[in-house]
């Protein structure tokens, strides 16, 4: 496969993974948690690096996943101690992120690890770092990891589809019929963390937030069916990734930044033209149905 093809494939994988997870993220009103986790995984990665002295994918993935769960746990704990939800998110992730930056600046300064890379990611380098897969040939490491993560996401969301649906829609009922709501919450946040860190190399932590939120929010404006929403969201994710890539190549700019920007364009178009919830249709047909 060619250089561009690998990049497009990798970016599309990010788009699909984030698109699926993002739908549940925004329906659970956890959009800001994505922002928080995308920042605090930095600490997980730095700590994993300091402990193992290696930058291998698997250590990073585990470190980041733990950091994500830790963030979720701290936010939940502060919230149960009377701090408003939004404020607890703001307190937790900024402190963890600051700690991560300080560790990099003081301890890991000469490593390959730099904040710039972690936050912005650089998809352009991905095709150079490959592993050989039997029967297939060389494949970029980041792409392989993303494939695995996507498989995990589809498996976990697919297997427990109706459990995710009910805990998201009506957690009280879910709890009353014996579904472990809190456990599902942590599982979901682990999924968000793993997605975040897998997408890390490709689009960088900050851009993951765009990929998680914008395609799902756009899809929310096009359909009233959860399953369709997931499909549309994934398609929007792919579209943004591809459009963002070519835009970046065209003006010779940051690929990840441009992908994030593309998700914004997709949302903007949905926001105006969506047949049911868009700005135009609301102007033409004032929403009388809404209660």
């Amino acid at each position: 496969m060619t250089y561009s093809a690998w990049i497009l494939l990798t970016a599309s994988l990010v788009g699909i993974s984030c698109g699926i997870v993002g739908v549940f993220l925004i329906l659970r009103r956890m959009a800001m948690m994505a922002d928080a986790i995308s920042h605090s995984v930095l600490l997980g990665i730095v700590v994993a690096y300091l402990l193992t002295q290696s930058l291998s994918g698997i250590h990073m993935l585990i470190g980041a996943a733990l950091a994500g769960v830790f963030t979720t746990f701290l936010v939940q704990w502060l919230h149960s101690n009377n701090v408003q939800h939004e404020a607890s998110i703001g307190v937790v992730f900024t402190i963890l992120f600051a700690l991560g930056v300080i560790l990099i600046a003081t301890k890991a300064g000469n490593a390959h690890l730099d904040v710039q890379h972690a936050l912005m990611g650089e998809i352009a380098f991905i095709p150079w770092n490959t592993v050989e897969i039997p029967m297939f040939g060389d494949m970029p490491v980041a792409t392989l990891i993303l494939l695995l993560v996507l498989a995990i996401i589809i498996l976990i969301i697919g297997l427990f589809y109706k459990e995710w649906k009910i805990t998201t829609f009506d957690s009280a009922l879910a709890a009353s019929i014996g579904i472990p709501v809190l456990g599902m919450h942590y599982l979901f946040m682990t999924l968000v963390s793993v997605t975040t860190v897998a997408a890390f190399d490709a689009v960088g932590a900050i851009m993951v937030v765009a990929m998680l939120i914008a395609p799902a929010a756009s899809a929310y404006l096009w359909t009233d069916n959860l399953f369709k929403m997931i499909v549309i969201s994934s398609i929007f994710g792919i579209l943004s990734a591809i459009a963002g890539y070519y835009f970046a190549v065209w003006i010779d700019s940051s690929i990840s930044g441009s992908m994030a920007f593309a998700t914004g364009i997709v949302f903007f178009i949905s926001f105006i033209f969506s047949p049911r919830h868009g700005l135009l249709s609301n102007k033409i047909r004032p929403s009388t149905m809404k209660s």
Partner: protein
Amino acid sequence: MSDALSHAALPGVVISFLIFQEKDFFLLIIGATISALLGAFLIMLIKSTTRITSDTAMGLILAVFFGGGIVLLTVVNRNSNGNQAGLDSFIYGQAASMIWSDVVITTILAATVILIILIGFKEWKLLLFDPNFAKGLNLSIKGMNTVYLIILVLTIVIGIQAVGVILMSALLIIPPVSARYWTHSFRKMMWLSGLFGGMAGTIGTTISALGSGWPTGPFIVMISGLIFLLSLFFGAKKGIVVEYLIFRNKKNEVLKLMPPAQIVREGKR
């Protein structure tokens, strides 16, 4: 909200640099202000016209604006003539890169913000506590919210230079949350919060000066985080230790209150 707005300020900084081709602090601040306000406007528009909830709208604007800012920043870096260095410091904060005139501008803006808060102190209090009642007293809610938004953006913009867009929200959130653990009075909370923020700024900056290339922002945030932890556990009004003692007493009270059943049920049938 503060997090979204501080991220949304980034493209403004870069655009203003692109237009004027110089790193004039004042011009950059104006750019930042405009783009943060635009972000705020878009968040409210999305929230009020669609079924998308406010946290989603905020995350969306935050990420998209920041992405746009990064795109522009790389464009600037490519066309650079050498004097763009320092724009990066808007992302992570580098108080050391500030020059004397920046300090003057920051001081003036900060003083303005404090003044606006002090002048309308009791009106702000009412607005926060009971907006409907405030409306009844002929205060313009819309007007006050707009003024508040503007001073919020101003505060963010002046803080960005020191701590960067990513950590700016920490300075807005952590000190007041910490202060809440020490007092129930709105006025005291405000002063305490200011004090905590000032302490974190002073100590954090001092520490970051100890090592070469140590960023200011993260140290300031860590110090305020420390203050928060202390407040969380030992705060006199709502600290965990205090709460626990109260809760234990309550539980004992309940156990003691368990009376012989017939007494409590004297009302039954």
